[in-house]
């Protein structure tokens, strides 16, 4: 079975470490916050200028001056700090964020990522995504492995305009956990009940499968 959005988030959360500063993109990445283990402290960075993002406010605590990068009303966690956008991206570009999780339309074997534009269709802009992929060393891309029509999103070469070049090393899809190294995809784990053959079929770029591939433990 392919992983649900929640299960993808759950698997990403296993990559968290105590004391990590983490930036979570919009969509599936946001759900990762729900799976931070109880015995672990993680601080969420929101690129509009907040480190230490808390949960959504109650109706009576809503504050128009306090939002996240998705423009949703939020609260601040204990020990939070506020800063301007230049400083926020100094943290990101300067490599101070320990883990970045973001979505994508396509990734390829050279670590290129396309996530912000579909010419003629979707031209909303990159927001902070280009800075995030350029600045972070530890990035996990979360996405579905293929489109609804079975067209692979893990390619030899991205077809859409790039968000970043050669910056992606880890991809977690609904089918597999994949590492990008030496111009190839390497299969690390498969979703429970998903066969290696199925993953190979739906991976357009070169995929290296070495030995027995373990199932993810969720």
């Amino acid at each position, binding site marked *: 079975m392919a992983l649900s959005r929640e299960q993808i988030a759950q698997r990403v959360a296993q990559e968290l470490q105590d004391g990590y500063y983490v930036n979570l993109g919009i969509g599936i990445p946001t759900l990762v916050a729900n799976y931070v283990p109880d015995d672990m402290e993680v601080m969420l960075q929101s690129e*509009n*200028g*907040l480190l230490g993002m808390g949960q959504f406010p109650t109706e009576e605590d809503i504050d128009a001056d306090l939002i996240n990068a998705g423009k949703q009303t939020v609260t601040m966690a204990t020990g939070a700090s506020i800063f301007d956008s230049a400083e926020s991206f100094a943290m990101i570009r300067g490599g101070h964020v320990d883990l970045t999780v973001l979505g994508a339309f396509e990734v390829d074997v050279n670590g290129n990522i396309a996530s912000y534009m579909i010419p003629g269709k979707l031209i909303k802009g990159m927001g*902070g995504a280009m800075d995030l992929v350029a600045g972070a060393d530890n990035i996990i891309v979360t996405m579905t492995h293929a489109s609804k029509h079975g067209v692979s999103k893990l390619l030899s070469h991205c077809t859409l305009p790039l968000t970043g070049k050669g910056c992606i090393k880890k991809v977690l899809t609904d089918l597999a956990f994949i590492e990008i190294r030496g111009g190839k995809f390497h299969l690390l784990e498969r979703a429970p009940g998903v066969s290696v053959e199925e993953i190979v079929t739906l991976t357009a770029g070169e995929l290296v499968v070495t030995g027995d591939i373990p199932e993810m433990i969720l």
Partner: protein
Amino acid sequence: MAGFDKVVTSYEEAMAGLTDNMTVIAGGFGLCGIPENLISEIKRKGTKGLTLVSNNCGVDDFGLGILLPDRQIKKIIASYVGENAEFERQMMAGELDVELTPQGTLAEKMRAGGAGIPAFFTATGYGTPVATGKEERQFKGRDYILEESIVGDFAIVKAWKADRYGNLVFRKTARNFNPLAATAGKITVVEVEEIVEPGELDPDHIHTAGIYVDRLIQGTFEKRIEQRTVRPSSAQGKK
């Protein structure tokens, strides 16, 4: 007005001197911390051919979006421009020039502009459409592109509190691009919720020094919320 007193009493006075085809830098992220009354004044004035520099362009009927129906914006430099139907229409029809700029690069363009730095190298956007036509250079084995800074004829800024000298304090994430915009205007106009006397703000707690501010006005704000997300209050119990 005398000495360092920056206070003006009307929005007309606040935006005096803004003329067609000028460049305006605006603070704000989404609808959070936007100089909403200064934007309304630009609409009222009917200034046209403007180049806007702002992370976003508001929504159809609020924020910078209200400058779209009368075609007051010629060009916008922004990182994300969703949530606005009229914007999309004008962009697709080629009536509006849009320069998509990564958010961190946009912030740094303002910061550098205000700090007298004409350009800077960044890895952001290397190998992407953003790099088109820009100088590339390697430092310590990594590739970077050269981005030019931005200075505006006007900067419009929203802060929380100010003293009459224009020392500013921002509130929560309404800070965002505002302190950067404040440094990068030839004329910087700031609207705030409260103006106090000089000396009342703790100098250690001032986010933006009054030297950057030319005009200051106290306003009232709608503070519209774009995405109202809540959790149940504890009184209602857990789901």
